[in-house]
């Protein structure tokens, strides 16, 4: 296991200490329980997210004006605990209530659920499940929450800054989630520091289509293919789910899983954009980079969000966080 690491046990805190020091103007790091909060407190609905670590910059990198008010980092790929969420809520609630933004994993859901039950202040929860690699079904856990979470955090974050109330923020989060679809592909597994061995083994000429952000197996193994045919497969699944009308404007997010350089992400973006325009969709907003990673996994995911005038305006609104910044 070649990583920049001191020991697996100190990995998380060493990294978070670095993050908090590098962005001391934006975030404050609290210990016991572990919570990162936004430095400038503002009277509005507070947005709190959290989940297992290893997906950086998600979520702490999105704390700041126009996005999150707090993030609760768990151990690597392990949901954080209810005491973290309760502490976060108590630290950032200004009386307008808190919205928990939770990715759809059993562990995340149960821990946030217990926190919500124990909280005395007003709160609501939205579950993000944008990963179309997994079939949805009312009998199962359903789809995973992946990179689309960033889009929910950005858009609802912008709405919260306008003074919208908790229920409106929750409804907007549900609305964005319903217009989101993502799918990923891995070229190389990641290694969980505590485990020390790759989560899966991928031969030199195979890729995992539909991989999860924890290295969960996807839809299928497939031989290595050209960027444009990989993009075609991902977009095929995404569009089959979203069924957008022709002419609709979309936000296209090409997200790196950790070990893929931006030059390759831009190449994927190019293929995705061309294929979408060929199908009569307009890529009117875009984001390309490493936003929801899986440690040092090589690979990428594509996310589409169907836009509307309102969503576009909220996407364009100023944001000032460690990992996403514009207009301010």
């Amino acid at each position, binding site marked *: 296991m070649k990583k920049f690491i001191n020991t697996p046990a100190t990995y998380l805190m060493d990294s978070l200490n670095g993050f908090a020091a590098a962005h001391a103007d934006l975030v404050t790091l609290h210990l016991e329980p572990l919570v990162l909060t936004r430095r400038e407190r503002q009277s509005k609905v507070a947005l709190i997210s959290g989940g297992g670590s290893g997906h950086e910059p998600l979520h702490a990198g999105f704390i700041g004006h126009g996005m999150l008010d707090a993030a609760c980092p768990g151990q690597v790929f392990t949901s954080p605990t209810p005491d973290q969420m309760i502490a976060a809520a108590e630290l950032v609630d200004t009386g307008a209530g808190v919205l928990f933004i939770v990715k759809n994993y059993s*562990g995340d859901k149960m821990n946030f659920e217990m926190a919500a039950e124990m909280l005395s202040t007003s709160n609501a929860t939205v579950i993000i499940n944008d990963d179309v690699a997994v079939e949805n079904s009312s009998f199962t856990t359903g789809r995973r929450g992946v990179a689309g979470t960033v889009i929910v955090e950005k858009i609802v974050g912008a709405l919260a800054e306008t003074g919208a109330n908790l229920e409106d923020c929750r409804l907007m989060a549900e609305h964005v989630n319903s217009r989101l679809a993502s799918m990923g592909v891995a070229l190389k597994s990641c290694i969980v520091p505590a485990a020390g061995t790759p989560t899966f083994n991928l031969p030199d000429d195979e890729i995992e289509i539909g991989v999860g952000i924890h290295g969960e197996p996807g839809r299928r193994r497939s031989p290595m293919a050209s960027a444009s045919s990989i993009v075609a497969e991902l977009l095929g699944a995404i569009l089959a789910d979203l069924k957008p009308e022709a002419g609709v404007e979309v936000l296209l997010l090409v997200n790196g899983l950790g070990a893929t350089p931006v030059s390759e992400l831009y190449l994927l973006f190019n293929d995705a954009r061309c294929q979408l325009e060929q199908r009569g969709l307009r890529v009117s907003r875009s984001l390309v980079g490493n936003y929801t990673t899986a440690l040092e996994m090589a690979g990428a995911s594509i996310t589409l969000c169907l836009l509307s005038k309102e969503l576009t305006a909220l996407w364009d609104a100023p944001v000032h966080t460690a990992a996403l910044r514009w207009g301010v």
Partner: protein
Amino acid sequence: MNGKSVMECVDAAHAVIEQHRDEIAQLDQAIGDGDHVFNLLRGLEALIELRPQIEGLEFQPALSLSASKLLSTIGGSSGPLLASLLMGMAKTPAPELNSSSLAAMFKSGVAMMAARGKAGVGEKTMLDVLIPVSETFEELTSTHVSSDQLLSAIKTRAEDGMLATREMIATKGRASFLGERAVGHIDPGARSSQLIITAICDLVAGRHESRASDALEYAGRGA
């Protein structure tokens, strides 16, 4: 039975999970995200650090303190689930401690876990071990079997439950994302629960002979 008994169980659980560390890690790498064994060890080690406090308490308060500690230490799916199990046991009215009140405690602990996980038997989770075990425990304490017979019946149900997860499609937890691809793999939570149940049975039976089968016995994919 008191806080000391709780810590004896914790020690037994810790030992058996340590012993099967690689096997459990591999099971969760195959159909989950690989952290299950580290989650368990982190939780159990936190309890071991709390030994003085836990040992100073009566049985149910000791379970209650352990539940809170696990809840704030483990995270993931196992954190809330195991905390619910112990919390449910701690909350069950039990004027005196005997095997039938223990069976009742265990039953409502498992029920609380099932409610938290919104899951039942057949969904390829730890409940495929814990629900059958709680049923056997309750059934046999109301009949007149010997303690040895009870313990060995529990161990058999636990092992059967664990092995049964191999052929299941998961509908709860991370393995549910895999659909058919999870078939052929034993659920890591079912395996860890079975190991802990077995270790506690052995502890109770005073039979401390090592029953460690090959630590990687169930990790092989498929067969």
